[in-house]
């Protein structure tokens, strides 16, 4: 299976990433190589083999539902890139150029 630049572009949009045309070329080639490598898994017979999604032995960890004090609000805001009146500031959700 070969992956095309358009498919890579689609995956990028799912991952909220964007690439220049030059980067897209490079990534398509590299993704293709990686996908070729992983396709050798096709030769393994996995009929009736269950999946392994975790190797922890712990199951259903329970705890008492006790209220504890939350983290201080000013501390929580410490790494916020842009802040206004104690709130996180973000640009308009709708493109400003589309307004009005």
């Amino acid at each position, binding site marked *: 299976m070969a992956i095309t630049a358009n498919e890579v572009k689609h995956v990028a949009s799912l991952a909220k990433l964007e690439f220049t045309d030059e980067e897209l070329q490079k990534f398509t080639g590299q993704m293709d190589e990686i996908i070729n*490598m992983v396709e050798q898994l096709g030769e393994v017979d996995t009929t009736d083999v269950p999946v392994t999604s975790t190797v922890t032995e712990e199951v259903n960890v329970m705890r008492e539902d006790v209220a504890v004090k939350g983290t201080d609000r000013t501390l929580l805001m410490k790494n916020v890139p842009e802040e206004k009146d104690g709130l996180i500031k973000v*640009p308009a959700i709708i493109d400003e150029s589309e307004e009005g």
Partner: protein
Amino acid sequence: MNYFENDLKSLHEGLVNKDFSAEELAKETFETIKKREEEIDAFITLDEERAMEKARAVDVKGIDEGNVLDGIPVGIKDNIVTKGLKTTAASKMLENFNPIYNATVMDKLDEKGMITVGKLNMDEFAMGSSTETSAFKKTKNAWDQTKVPGGSSGGSAAAVASGEVIAALGSDTGGSIRQPAAFNGIVGLKPTYGRVSRYGLIAFASSMDQIGPLTRSVYDNALMLNAISGHDFRDFTSSSKEVPDFTKGIDEGVKGMRIAVPKEYFAEGVDANVKQAVKDAIKKFEELGATVDEVSLPHTKYGVPVYYIIASSEASSNLQRFDGIRYGFRAEDVKNLEDVYVRSRSEGFGDEVKRRIMLGTFSLSAGTYDAFFKKAAQVRTLICRDYENVFENHDLILGPTAPTTAYGIGEKIDDPVTMYMNDILTIPVNLAGLPGMSLPAGFSDGLPIGMQLVAPRFREDTLYKAGFAFEQATDFHKAVPEIGGQN
């Protein structure tokens, strides 16, 4: 107070006998670091002021004679969050991230009186095997500054190997403690999945990530693992099993120990000198009274593809949180919210991180999920079963840690698949959640060779016993790189 001539025990004795104070030890440590950093570049951030303050506080309180780690300086990989100390994961995304809490392992080391001197360089978000994907600097191998230190815990390994610190913490998702330990000629242990809390470790692949110690000796490594192990209510995958004292019985020897050597670990692609060093080690273990059998782990060659699908899938999910909103890098001049996400991520992440996010997103997306993610998770089961079969009749698996010794800086960075294949011997251990340790087993052209020991789940004690016996019987761990105008 030369770290090449000391171990944790002798440093502790020096502190107890007041041969030197914790303040003097810390001061000298920073002096050494500053000198050797000109060649090694292992640290992203130094925390001198707070470290000196803490050292003085230890002196005022007095050294706890029952606590061998009290007042000892330590280095921490920069993906382990440290309260009030910048934690970057070697990414532009977190260049100015200042955590408001400690990882559980940091609380544990603090409680033991260890003094964090700074944060160590790594591959960005621990994705890489050479520390070259760091957004900030290239760390050099302690033995040859034209070679990579390995990765992703390359800063941790190079700092310990060059005598900047006596011990460091790293993290290992596919070999990231063991391979750099091998490349730098030191001891690195990846604990059993669940042995050490992952709370506060910046997540890469949550079903495989583990924090572990890098040291110059096996005994020191056991002392460090004692300090960081144990159940944590903040990490539900951490084990509720009781933690033994890993130094207890460490000197019992390997008489009667049943060692398995997988034939797949000597396949084509493993350097001849590396093979020879491990064969010599096998002979040594036989001399020491262990029995050695050749076994087969038939699914070994599928480890790399399985790993890159599963680790990348988990990474693509874990790294969704980096969206430029609440913390981390936010792109400038953005005109709408979608732009904040896309531009912040595209400008904030480096190429290797993007490649993994892309592969993960692809593997999980509709149309490819069954053929990629599900298939990989099934083959992962077969890899786990390979190990279970061998451990029915054996206590330990032995092989090389990496196919080669350290390669040149810049040599492989543009060829992801070749770079990935280099992890073939360490990756399956993470897929199965087993404990693995790399320790010095020889040299090739002046570069260290690492040997890997793998044990059943929660049998780190077996690794330490075998490693200690080998160390006592050999001199490889005593070799010291020429660095900083002295050796």
